């Protein structure tokens, strides 16, 4: 495979949370300004020749269909070649992938990725939960995000003895990590008992097994690696990425203790990067629900099949453990403004691989970090990205 090497040279985000006073455009602009401002040697916005706007809810709720023009106008650059992308929960990471493809192909020199989302523009029950009214009117009847993921987690618990306590340990870990992240939505500490005592939402997920509904924005700037020195002396490099789709409806899935699309996307990313999962120092993994992090760790090869529950119990996925999983706090605690989520995960890798993460800094042994999203309608798509320090 021949492609031009791609470097990340800037990254910035908004705080994630219930940002009732900010518009979608303000979130996008704030993330953009922070990303531009983060470039060590500075960058003029005019250097950006391509932009991708990651945003989901517009297409889910239909009051407006955002486009690339929404982003270009929000950041004061009408005329910019900007594309809006929506690809389920991996929207942000796929937007990043598209930017990488544009640069790697030689068509673009400097590309911008902005993810922004306003989930809290509506009440919780008429916001993301309304996705339960989307899709096939009978096969998706009464479905919500939880019912899309729960069957696999329940099968994992049934087949491998994974426990509700182990699921809760994921929440405890990620909330603890988020308490060290000033951008995170949830910064308190919780315990396993808190999780298990919280109201049940959907078997096997309690309220505290679930990520919040969030507003937020995140942006990164990528460029040809041979240009990176113009902007910074410590770029982070794109080592590999992969996208894969899944058999769509639940009845069509072929594995039920994970997701085939993540296994495929991960294999493609690792193959592109020329490394295996043992080379990872950290992973930002899609943890919309606690159990989903566990299954993803296995799909990505971070843990052997059936062992992820024991791994979190043993602290292997904590900061300082074998592989730190979701040191940012993850979707569970940092927040999950969908279009911004993947971009924010990449920002965490960028910060960690530059060893700028402060109190939540992960010890770097090999200099590789992985970012992953899985989801979309009926959990049909997964994106994995691997960034490298060198």
């Amino acid at each position, binding site marked *: 495979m021949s492609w031009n090497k791609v470097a990340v040279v800037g990254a910035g985000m908004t705080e994630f949370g219930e940002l009732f006073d900010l518009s979608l455009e303000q979130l996008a602009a704030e993330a953009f300004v922070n990303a531009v401002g983060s470039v060590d040697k500075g960058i003029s916005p005019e250097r950006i020749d391509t932009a991708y706007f990651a945003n989901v809810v517009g297409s889910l709720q239909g009051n407006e269909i955002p486009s690339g023009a929404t982003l270009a106008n929000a950041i004061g650059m009408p005329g910019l070649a900007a594309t809006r992308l929506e690809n389920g929960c991996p929207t942000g990471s796929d937007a990043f992938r598209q930017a990488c493809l544009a640069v790697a192909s030689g068509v673009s020199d400097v590309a911008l990725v902005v993810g922004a989302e306003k989930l809290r523009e509506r009440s919780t*029950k*008429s916001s993301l*939960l*309304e996705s*339960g*009214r*989307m*899709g*096939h*009117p*009978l*096969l*998706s*009847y*009464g*479905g*919500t995000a*939880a*019912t899309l993921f*729960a*069957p696999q987690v*329940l*099968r994992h618990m*049934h087949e491998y003895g994974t426990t509700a306590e182990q699921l809760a340990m994921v929440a405890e870990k990620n909330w603890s990590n988020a308490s060290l992240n000033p951008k995170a939505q949830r910064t308190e500490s919780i315990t396993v008992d808190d999780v298990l005592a919280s*109201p*049940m*939402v*959907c*078997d*096997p997920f309690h309220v505290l097994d679930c990520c919040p509904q969030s507003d937020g924005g995140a942006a990164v700037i990528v460029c040809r690696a041979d240009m990176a020195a113009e902007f910074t002396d410590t770029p982070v490099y794109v080592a590999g990425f992969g996208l894969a789709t899944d*058999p769509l*409806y*639940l*009845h*069509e*899935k072929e594995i*039920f203790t994970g997701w085939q699309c993540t296994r495929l996307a991960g294999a493609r990313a690792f193959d592109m990067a020329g490394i295996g999962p043992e080379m990872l120092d950290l992973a930002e993994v899609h943890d919309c629900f606690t159990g989903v992090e566990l299954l993803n760790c296995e799909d990505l090869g971070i843990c052997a099949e059936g062992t992820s529950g024991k791994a979190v119990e043993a602290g292997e996925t904590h900061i300082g453990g074998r592989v730190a999983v979701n040191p940012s706090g993850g979707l569970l605690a940092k927040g999950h403004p969908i279009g911004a989520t993947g971009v924010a995960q990449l920002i965490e890798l960028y910060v960690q691989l530059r060893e700028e993460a402060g109190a939540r800094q992960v010890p770097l042994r090999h200099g590789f970090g992985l970012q992953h999203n899985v989801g979309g309608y009926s959990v049909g798509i997964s994106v994995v990205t691997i960034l490298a320090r060198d």
Partner: protein
Amino acid sequence: MTSSSVIAGAVYIPACVVKSRRGEHRVCAADEDAVTLAVEAGSQALRRAPAGRNGVDAVIVALRDDIGDARPGGVDAQVVREALGLPSTVRVVTLSGADSLSGLAALQGAWGGTTLVLAADSGRGRSQACGAALLAVSDDTPANTAVRLVEVARASGLTHERWNGSDSPGHEPDSRFLEHRYASLACELASHPDLAALTDVTRIYAAAATKTELGHVTAALDEVSTTALARDRAAVDRGIAGPLAAIVEAALQPPPNGSGVLYTSGSGQAVLLRVGVPEGISAHYDWFEPAETHTPVAAPVEGPELSLPVESPFFVRNWGPSLRLEAAKCASCGHIAFPASQRPICAKCHGRQWHKHTLASEGRVYASLQNKFLPVGFPRSLVFVLGELDDGVKYWAPAPAETAADELRIGDRVRLGLRCFTNRNGITVYGMKFIPEKTETAAAGSSAMANTSRGHRTSGRNR
């Protein structure tokens, strides 16, 4: 003289019970209605029929629900046909304004060939919710293979049923005038000269008849009987499904007790039929009445809005196959896919030639969960099941609202049954739900005597 031959039949009684001072009262679950009751009974009858669903030429459907005339009868009858897996060439007749005699009239009016007659009543007043189905064939069927019904006497008069009034729930309807009118009809019928031939009758089945009516008929039979009569007046109070249910009950009696007469009344008519039950036919009949019961949850007046309305082109393309549990099977590699309209190319071999494949309707729980946080308009809580059907295909569907979360465990037996998904603007959307089998197997497939709610033999008039 009108006669009919019946080669198979079934009764379905829902599993929900409410208690009153008169005892237990079977009612529909929140997502059951006359359509689903008819399908449940019809599928059991077809399962018991010697040739299954093959050879069914016509379906006659009589439905009665509380929503009354608002039923879009034509569509509902087509829903019944699709859910029973009957081909589009089958003639479908809907009896609008169905009453107690509708099922019987349909049976007697069934034209040549094989006709599936369905009568279902979601229950009101004192009548029990019930679906009943009979498979009627032409009269040249060998006598030892069919229940033979021969009309003996009929009396008719003009009486408007609405005198009964629609009283408040819990109030007894003002039915004395109607009871008087029907008693008069029964009296007239009892004096019919053809009753003189009924010298051998030892059993009276009654549907939708009062004690007074039965008293007149019994007295008349007492006079003509040549033997000591030990009549067991098996009263079946099943609304408009009653007469057909009574015939199923007769067919399920151990020989030679099944034969007798059936008395029923409605629409200003009283009818007496001789019921001949040959030996060895009970395997073709089923009284399906769950022993384990539920308390019904309240059915919402208006259900949740779906992503697309039932009138939409999407439903037109997909509804029939989903009701028939119809999938597509790749002609090249055998891969099974559904919904077929969304899978035009095989995911396994890229083939584009498909055959129709009917999914198994039974299987086991592969995973189940209770969702307690649903979008606006849905119930507060619903159980969902990922089932592994007996043909190895997986299927995802909700369970009825009465299903408790701990009622379904991985490995438990379930079946797919037709239930209401929502009701919007008077139109009901039907689909398949996973129903726990453990509540049903205890009573299915055995004799009516063992399983009917014998405590309900009082013959209150409820039309």
